[in-house]
């Protein structure tokens, strides 16, 4: 988001007298930005639809935990990797419910939740007609777009943490808790295991920030929020399918969803930083690329809604 601040500062120079309090000290600009961001967050989190989506991501870990408790998997060690490993570990350690829930929701539900808010961000304002009134406030096109994006990322972060925290609580209630045996076979203390779960949650938030950037860009192209949301989901699912087809393996690393499940690199000793680095790089590239596209489109097109 350095992008936005740079652009704000390159706003056309105006005689100081005419500006008065407008340019103001830097602190005032920051405070004004904070106020706008807070207002945007209130709007996002107050909307019934967005609240229901958070309720959904809260309900899933509860359902998964209950289901697995009833199915009662046998504790037969933690060899190998992938989903099986988490399931096998669960009966021995409730912490693994967090990873199971995150992995399950990462496939479709979490991207959908982020897509709804991202797809709605600009297109929703356009369809309500409120966009023209925000811009004539003036909100500033770059400023508005950056506030929208930060709100999307915040919403994604909250959704991801709701999954992680709910799953952790349910796991603690239903299953025994203790030192965590990692996928590589080594056992670390519970505290150290929880820190790794925190890193996993943040890694997934970063993945969702990339989805949010793609969503923001798509949202600037239309006045129909539903269309934007659908487009984002088509993109996510297509990427996931292509990622599974061996013939496409040369392009697989460049797909937006390819590195999502690499969070399991955090559950090994030593941590597979190369894979994580590739994943974070991929997310960063998607964020920069698509926020730039969104910016290029939004700052140059007529608002006709």
């Amino acid at each position, binding site marked *: 988001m350095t992008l936005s601040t740079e652009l704000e500062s390159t*706003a*056309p120079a*105006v005689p100081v007298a*005419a*500006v008065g*309090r*407008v340019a*103001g000290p830097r602190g005032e*600009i920051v*405070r*004004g*930005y904070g*106020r*706008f961001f*807070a*207002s945007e967050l209130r*709007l996002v989190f*107050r*909307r*019934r639809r967005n609240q229901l989506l958070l309720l959904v991501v809260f309900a899933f870990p509860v359902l998964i935990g209950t289901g697995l408790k009833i199915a009662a998997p046998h504790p037969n060690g933690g060899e190998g990797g992938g989903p099986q490993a988490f399931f096998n570990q669960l009966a021995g350690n409730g912490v693994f419910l967090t990873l199971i829930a995150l992995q399950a929701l990462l496939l479709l539900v979490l991207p959908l939740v982020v897509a709804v808010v991202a797809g709605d961000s600009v297109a929703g304002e356009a369809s*309500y*007609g*409120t966009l*023209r*009134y*925000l*811009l*004539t*406030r*003036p*909100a*500033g096109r770059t*400023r*508005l777009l950056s506030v929208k994006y930060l709100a999307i990322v915040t919403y994604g972060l909250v959704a991801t943490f709701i999954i992680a925290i709910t799953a952790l609580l349910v796991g603690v209630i239903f299953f025994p808790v203790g030192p965590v045996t990692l996928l590589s076979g080594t056992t670390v203390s519970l505290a150290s295991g929880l820190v790794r779960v925190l890193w996993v949650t943040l890694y997934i938030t970063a993945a969702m920030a990339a989805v949010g950037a793609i969503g923001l860009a798509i949202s600037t192209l239309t006045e129909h929020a539903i269309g934007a949301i659908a487009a984002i989901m088509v993109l996510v699912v297509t990427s996931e399918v292509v990622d599974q087809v061996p013939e496409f393996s040369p392009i697989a690393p460049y797909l937006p969803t390819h590195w999502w499940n690499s969070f399991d690199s955090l559950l090994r000793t030593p941590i597979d930083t190369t894979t994580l680095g590739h994943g974070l790089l991929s997310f960063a590239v998607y964020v920069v690329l698509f926020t730039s596209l969104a910016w290029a489109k939004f700052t*140059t097109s*007529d*608002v*006709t809604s």
Partner: protein
Amino acid sequence: MTDIIEATEGAAEEAAASAQLAAGSLAIATSGLTKRFRGGQVAVDSIDLAVPAGCVYGFLGPNGSGKTTTIRMLLGLAFPTAGTAEILRTPMPNGAASVLHRVGSLVEGPAFFPFLSGRENLARCDAADQTADPRTAKARIGEALERVGLTAAARKRYRNYSLGMKQRLAIAAALLRPRDLVILDEPTNGLDPQGTREVRSLVRQIAADGITVFVSSHLLAEVEQVCSHVGVMRGGRLVFQGSLDGLRHTRASRIRVRTADIEAAVAVFAKLGLADPDAVDGVITAELGPTEPERITAELVHAGVGVRELVVETPSLEDLFVGLTGEGFDVEH
């Protein structure tokens, strides 16, 4: 057609005159402002607006004549394909961030979130304003609501507002901060007569505070009652600009006399040197010019002409408006 040409010439003169008069004190000034859509359609065709500071400017024209597109360009929502626009001496759209906080606007009807109350919607508008002072937000929102008479409905959700209330909320949003210019696009669209009156009186109040008001409308009557200056659009072109009186004077008043002694009346008219006389079926008309109607009456009586009816016909603004903008869609072809 001749009327239109005359009017256009008049407009050019008027514009030049007012531009000279008000050099440096124009609230809105555009030069060759043009908007060509991607399909090639020219929505706004090289218009030169000159809106003197402190006036109430009526921006008239039929639907689809380019008024809203012009306003969108003035406010930096749309980008001109040619020409320049300045509001409050700041070039648009580049100066948007530094000038728009001095401009209140209503563009193409009110637009708010239906699930928020009136007050919450205004709070959101104010929070988006990069230069608004958060410490005074509450007071300013309260004042704006009070001003448009929505204090009692401030907590009601926007979705439950009547059309008139929605419109008034939009005007409240335009008045959230002290403004130097208020741009209202069709502020009475869809309102009942009472709502129209409310808006009109609000416009008067705003103007009374010395704020320049730029109000667009396709309804002449609305503009006639509140505006001192008018600009008339037709097919994307500005076909007249000047004071309301200037518009009135684009067509001469005529005297009309009904009489049985039509020949004697023609002789009196000729003697008085009235221009463009026209006698048909016991009615004679001519341009009034500088001649006073009293004198015509006296001369007619003196000549023994039995006058059944004597009327000074001032062209109604509606006639002038229709003359400038065409009768309707048929005329455009």
